[in-house]
């Protein structure tokens, strides 16, 4: 709130006091010297001295000053953290203070994005690109003005000393990082939602009836579970007969694969069976591609570039070992996007292959001998007989911790994590 802001402002003003404030000096940023800067260490030291607080508290307070934009980092501007080392920081000009009542307007933001786009192609990050195109549509009638302003501001900045230019760019970037307007709310949001395709209530609500009926017997609280509910009987059979790597699955489980494509893929055994089927149909590369894309989407940021290269090499490159058949437009867009790889670069292609499998391979699988046999040999567990002494409690056995099970497979050199690759652990895993 406002009071929070003025509290921080008091600190900032004290920090800039000519006598008792921080000692500023020139900081080196690559080959440029930035005047009137300070290090993260300086900030923390000063706060400790001035307010007689511990280092932990000083770090917290200093961190807030950065988070709210009163101090901004010169290095790694996107990371709004106060580092307790010699990283250089600078005071934000009061014009850009968060507490100012000036609401960041869409027009200013559009000018800022246009400048970035003109200055260097590809400097806009994902969300900025999206905002840019939204704004382009939204305020298209003033777009000439936006571009003109952007060009003029860039021209003027070229006439400044490099140090000043860098300072201003950093100030501006820090400001917009914190204050970027909700480009889609409220007006844009309302415009788009008016045009949204809505479904009639009667159709939507009917689907709730169908869903709860379809899953009725799979819902233990509604229908019970066989051979017994572990929480009641203290017998964990229900869990052991439903593990990933069990030899013969239960009938309920196999039936569930027919409810939706997502159900089939979400069950690691279902996915394995589907893969076997696809191999017979010589279209296994589709599922492999989908799995690889999931791994890219949900994996570590540091591995993105490597994974994109792998996916390209294995599935998209001309003559690739497992080339996937994507329509030319999607392929073109994907190949273009690979030049600047990011987490979502395969989304279009992945979605195309997913819906291909869903529409063609999945229904065929459900009609196949492979699936029918699986359903026929699936077991229906017998309900556990009540013991002669129904109130004698069984011993509750512990199970190996998932951390331990996965540690074992990790030691074997396999990857950790609930990724698409199923573990081939032979231990009686409860996962």
């Amino acid at each position, binding site marked *: 709130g406002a009071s929070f802001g003025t509290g921080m402002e008091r600190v900032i003003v004290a920090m800039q006091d000519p006598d008792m404030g921080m000692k500023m000096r020139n900081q080196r940023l690559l080959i440029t010297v930035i005047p009137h800067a300070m290090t993260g260490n300086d900030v923390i030291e000063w706060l400790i001295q001035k307010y007689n607080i511990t280092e932990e508290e000083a770090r917290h307070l200093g961190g807030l000053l950065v988070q709210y934009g009163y101090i901004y980092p010169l290095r790694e501007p996107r990371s709004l953290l106060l580092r307790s080392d010699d990283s250089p920081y600078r005071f934000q000009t009061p014009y850009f203070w968060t507490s100012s009542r000036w609401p960041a307007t869409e027009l200013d933001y559009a000018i800022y994005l246009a400048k970035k786009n003109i200055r260097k192609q590809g400097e806009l990050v994902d969300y900025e690109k999206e905002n840019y195109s939204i704004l382009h549509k939204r305020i298209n009638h003033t777009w000439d003005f936006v571009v003109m302003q952007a060009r003029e501001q860039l021209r003027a900045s070229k006439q400044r000393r490099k140090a000043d230019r860098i300072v201003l760019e950093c100030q501006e970037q820090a400001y917009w990082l914190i204050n970027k307007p909700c480009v889609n709310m409220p007006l844009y949001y*309302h415009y788009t939602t008016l045009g949204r395709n809505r479904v009639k209530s*009667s159709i939507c609500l009917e*689907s709730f009836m169908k869903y709860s009926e379809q899953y009725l017997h799979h819902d233990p609280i509604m229908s019970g579970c066989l051979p017994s509910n*572990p929480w009641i009987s203290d017998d964990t059979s229900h869990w052991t007969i439903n593990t990933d790597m069990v030899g013969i699955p239960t009938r309920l489980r196999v039936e569930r694969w027919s409810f939706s494509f997502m159900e089939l893929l979400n069950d690691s055994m279902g996915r394995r069976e589907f893969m076997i089927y696809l191999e017979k149909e010589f279209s296994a590369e589709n599922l492999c591609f989908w799995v690889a894309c999931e791994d890219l989407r949900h994996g570590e940021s540091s591995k993105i570039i490597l994974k994109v290269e792998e996916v390209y090499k294995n599935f998209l490159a001309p003559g690739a070992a497992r080339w996937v058949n994507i329509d030319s437009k999607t392929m073109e867009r994907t190949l273009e996007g690979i030049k600047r790889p990011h987490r979502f670069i395969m989304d279009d292609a992945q979605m195309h292959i997913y819906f291909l499998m869903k529409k063609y391979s999945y229904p065929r699988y459900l009609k196949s001998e492979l699936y029918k046999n699986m359903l026929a040999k699936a077991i229906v567990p017998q309900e556990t007989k009540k013991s002669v002494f129904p109130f004698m409690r069984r011993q509750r056995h512990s*199970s190996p911790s998932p951390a331990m099970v996965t540690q074992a497979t990790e030691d074997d050199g396999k990857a950790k994590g609930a990724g698409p690759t199923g573990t081939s652990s032979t231990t009686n895993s409860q996962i």
Partner: protein
Amino acid sequence: VSIYTPDLQNILSLLFFLLPASALTTGIYMIFSTKPEMATQEIQPNETLTNLKAESDTLKTKLEDERAKLHDVELHQVAEKVDGLGQFIMKTRRTLKGHGNKVLCMDWCKDKRRIVSSSQDGKVIVWDAFTTNKEHAVTMPCTWVMACAYAPSGCAVACGGLDNKCSVYPLSLDKNENLAAKKKSVAMHTNYLSACSFTNSDMQILTSSGDGTCALWDVESGQLLQSFHGHAADVLCLDLAPSETGNTFVSGGCDKKANVWDMRSGQCIQSFETHESDINSVRYYPSGDAFASGSDDATCRLYDLRADREVAIYSKESIIFGASSVDFSLSGRLLFGGYNDYTINVWDVLKGTRVSILFGHENRVSTLRLSPDGTAFCSGSWDHTLRVRDRGVITWATFPKGPHSQGER
């Protein structure tokens, strides 16, 4: 809406060229804004903002009209042909005692039996709820650990609260090892952490905060991948959608709004504002086509995403305290709500009636989740305990047929 007229453009560009370069640090961009102090006579910012507000309000009304046009039937009408459920008896199967203070949050492990819970005194405990054994415990450096989550692999937990952070603790196999030593700080907000959840893997965490935002983080580097702005006040809860494309989530906040977000772009794609007070909990219907919410206004509500509207309210005159936490049974037929009056109310989602009221906790119910395979549900309370419950049965597996059955276990 065009704020700038052609004449204005010319005046502004002229001013721009006339300003000396030394105007640098005072912000040369001011003349392009509607900031009152530096505005020329031509710009009247207040008038412009009023116009925008009026336009916004008109559109909101139009939107409600459009939504209403397609609302041709109520849920309980459609549900008339479905059999009623009668009264359910639920029994406590496990009571987990060990927290020294209010339990604030809990989450299940994918192995269907382990849980992680966090409390006001900073303690985070990992239990095998089946045996009731404590397997790990860590003390956070802050109090009020309002959020905790189990990683999909079962190898780590995430938690946070008044420290404004979300930290990840790998679960060590060595009982003697200090878990806190391996702690990894991932998320940093500017106010308390209210909820956290891993996405499909151990590598990303979604958080919501009292600072009014949600954010997506890369666990390995602590890098902010996407932030979500749109709530006008504290965000209290979130839930990831179980959809085919796996790209959306819903959040609820003190601004009474429930927002649906696109994780890729950071955009809010749908918004619902029918509650009369803070939304404490949101949870997707198992198909992903709808979600339920629990609020301080003592109601739970169901919102359909395709119809783009609220489709059911679960309330009773006798229920006057807020709902803190909601979750669905596996088939989506039942909605469980934990309330601040110490009870749990179980609702028939289709008919809108209550099928069970559960007592037992001696203080507020603060958190409630169904186990991953739906065999039980766990509630955590300010009475320092967690309870695992499910239905009363006659034999080990089957249920009593009528509403008054004898000999239930």
